[in-house]
């Protein structure tokens, strides 16, 4: 019943079987002052019941704004560490580093149900509020959010709408296989990267289409990654969540615009 109510509210393009295998949302912020390695363990002790496994990872060095780049440069003497906290069935992940908080969802089995943004956003909010409360209890400052990020990772497997890279224009209408002199044969591999400045919001949408092999089952796929990072006008909850929703809107509309109606049909477009 609740699902029907939520679905009834959806106005953005929606698909029965979207190719998304992973989504992530979160915030980039200026490095938290006085953050040290032991805080990772203290934070984990708070969430261990829901996220029982942890892994250390090298940090993401994104620095997509001048403020973040400067802050990252100034704090580089600190031990560069990122922590991944996994939930029980390893479908969700929290990533923490001294200037980043992300929440990932991934599809594990081929029959796993796609978790919609409407389902994930409340989970993310809960975890972010928990993180903020942790910082407050430890006497650390509230993060100054610089960027809100939403990323969708899609796998378009060979055999699902395409067989060779000569078929690429049937997936992505902006790709043309035409050449000036008709000398070149059809491409063996194609990769694309595109960046778009957002309209009405300070931020960018980046799309990357990469030919790849999935490590879990060695299937050939085109990994289509759509990322939106936008800058909130303040770090207030209202503003950063609004910014996150805006980022997600651009991801969905950007993905739909970038891909073809033929593929939308294969994925079962509902709206």
């Amino acid at each position, binding site marked *: 019943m609740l699902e029907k109510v939520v679905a009834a509210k959806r106005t953005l393009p929606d698909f029965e079987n979207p190719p998304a295998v992973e989504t992530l949302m979160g915030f980039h912020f200026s490095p938290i002052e006085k953050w040290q390695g032991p805080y990772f363990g203290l934070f984990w002790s708070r969430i261990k019941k829901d996220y029982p496994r942890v892994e250390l990872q*090298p940090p*993401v*060095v994104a620095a997509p704004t001048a403020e973040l780049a400067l802050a990252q440069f100034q704090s580089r003497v600190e031990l560069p560490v990122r922590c991944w906290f996994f939930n029980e069935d390893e479908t969700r992940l929290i*990533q923490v580093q001294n200037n980043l908080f992300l929440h990932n969802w991934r599809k594990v089995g081929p029959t796993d149900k796609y978790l919609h943004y409407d389902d994930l956003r409340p989970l993310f909010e809960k975890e972010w509020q928990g993180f903020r409360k942790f910082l407050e209890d430890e006497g650390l400052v509230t993060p100054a959010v610089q960027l809100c990020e939403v*990323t969708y990772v899609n796998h378009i497997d060979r055999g699902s709408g395409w067989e060779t890279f000569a078929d690429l224009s049937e997936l992505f209408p902006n790709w043309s296989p035409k050449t000036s002199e008709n000398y070149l044969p059809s491409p063996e591999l194609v990769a694309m990267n595109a960046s778009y400045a957002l309209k009405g919001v300070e931020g960018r949408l980046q799309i990357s289409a990469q030919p*790849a*092999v999935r*490590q879990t089952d*060695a299937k050939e796929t085109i990994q289509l990654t759509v990322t939106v990072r936008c800058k909130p006008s303040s770090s207030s909850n209202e503003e950063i969540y609004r910014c996150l929703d805006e980022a997600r809107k651009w991801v969905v509309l950007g993905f739909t615009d970038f891909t073809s109606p033929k593929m939308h049909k294969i994925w079962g477009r509902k709206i």
Partner: protein
Amino acid sequence: MSYAVLERTRQQLGEPAQNQWSKVTSLFAAPWVLDALDRIAGLARLPRNWDGYGSPRIDPGAIAAARRFVASVAFESLPLPNVSPVLGGSVGLQWRYGEKELEFTFHPNGEVEFLRVLGADLDRDENMETGTLRHEPEMAGLKFLLWMTGCR
């Protein structure tokens, strides 16, 4: 497989850390991978008795395991492996790098055997090592491959 360890290895080889979880290997990062995957997949076309000695067809599970292995160790610094059918329905992958050599055999029962050749003189016992990769074969295999190319 522990992707955290792989992630560190990738860093060692100059690839930046990512914030996405699902792992893929870019076909541009290692151009030999597509060839290797095609050759492994091609083994499925061999008929029963392909060797004239009554060998069964190549096992689909062994093919899938060999393909997964290749996808997990797809680094540009590695050469294209020799792909071969093996008696009993198994798949063999063989890498040569100077005097060093590595062979992995993917069996229908899921076992992965290895043969490591450490020097040209094969009459010396210490120049050869054989065994079974029982736990996380991709990770153990990657360590061997890094040894072979001199990264560790």
